[in-house]
């Protein structure tokens, strides 16, 4: 999986890569960027989300919302978003370069 993705990136012309990198986060996910970074790169102890597995992000958000995962602040945040929003946000982060 990782190898095929690397291969695709290797073949992609530079301008396609640039266009992909510049696809903005879904509006519902714009609020994430103020802490997790404008490209999801993370900052200090705030987790990097760029390139993380989509399903892993979705599962984490569901667990935060249900108070089933230890949280400092994400539990309060996760409960504000719909499943569809979380799925779209997770897909965007997953598509960002690490």
């Amino acid at each position, binding site marked *: 999986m990782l190898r095929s993705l690397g291969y695709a990136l290797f073949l992609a012309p530079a301008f396609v890569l640039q266009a992909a990198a510049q696809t903005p986060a879904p509006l519902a996910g714009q609020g994430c960027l103020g*802490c997790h970074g404008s490209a999801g790169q993370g900052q200090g102890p705030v987790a990097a989300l760029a390139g993380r597995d989509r399903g892993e992000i979705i599962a984490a958000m569901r667990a935060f919302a249900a108070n089933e995962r230890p949280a400092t602040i994400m539990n309060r945040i996760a409960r504000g978003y719909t499943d569809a929003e979380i799925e779209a946000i997770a897909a965007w982060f997953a598509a960002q370069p690490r």
Partner: protein
Amino acid sequence: MSLHPSRRAILAGLAAGLAAPSIGRAQATARLVIVGGGFGGASAASFARRAHPELDVTLVEPQRSFVTCPYGNLVLAGRRGLDSITHSYDGLRARGVRVVHDRAAEVDPTARRIRLAGGEVLGFDRAILSPGIALRWGAIEGYDEAAAQRMPHGWVPGDGSQTRTLRRMLEEMPDGGVVGLAIPGNPFRCPPGPYERISMIAEYLRAHKPRSKILALDAKEGFSKQALFQDGWRALYGDMIEWVPASRDGKVTRVDPAAMEFETEFGTRHRVAVGNVIPPQRAADIAQPFANEGGWVPVDPVTFEARNAPGVHVVGDANAGTPMPKSGYVANSTAKQAVAAAAALLRGEAPPEPVYFNTCYSHVGPEYGISVVGVFRAGPDGIAEVSGSGGVSPRGDLPEQRRLEALYADAWYDSITGEMFG
């Protein structure tokens, strides 16, 4: 003229990458003029270039660089220098934003023109105003611009001189002196800000002038994250801080800067060594034609257009955006929604459904942070917090929670300013 969308995106991307905004502008279809280069305006400009490269973006801001309100309290604590909270507009220029260092003097929403103090007139298809607040000089008797030299407000950073003055006064005061704060009623910029300031001043005094006191005179009965702040104050600073609500004569109605005295509603006079007056506020002058009786601009909850000026979106502290707080994060969030709405309306499409996001972290002491979170949506009765979400940090003896929130606060500051100015 029509370019294939992908080709246009590539050209715009190249223009941004090469820092040649004139190429981008030649292809542009619509002019977005943004007034104010703070959290709302810089966020709008950056987001417009990232998400809507077809827009021609001009940012009007008198200051050559931006000193943030957030983290100003850490300068007062002596933890940070002003340089570390001062940001250049070069990053926005490199993204293809035309930055005009002038003051917007008048907005004509009908002719869609903004006149600048220097004489230039900017036509716009959509305008975003994020001009921030003006202080109500004279609302507290004796508190005018001259008085603010002796009793700084430190609430509109400008070139940083107010924050610098307040810090210098704290450094020069004797151990055992009283630091007085006058805190306004709602609504005002940054609801937890005065209480973080109390905390950061206490942190400095405890380390350097431990016999000193802080007298916080408040025009309100309660405040943001109150229980968390007061828990922290007791734990970290003992009896150094006295907070006085309006019902116990906390409302300051007059100041005498020459005598360094605060006078309250019922005539009590308090002598202070350092006086920090945070006066009542309203939207900045440029937004006043669109404001209500309270001085704030009522806005559409989805587009953030002024109710009386379609095409003019008002974000940041200047609007009447309740129940959302006047915070940097809300300014950032609503600015993006306003840009997305403006871009949709310019294409003849419906504006997107908004999700507004806020987190306000406050530092209470070393390795001690607290927060309030809010997720908001537009409903039939205006903007409302999503039920069951958000809220404040848990109370109790939770050192790891406090330590992490202090670290997250620092990460927030770096991430959001990086997004705005990077």
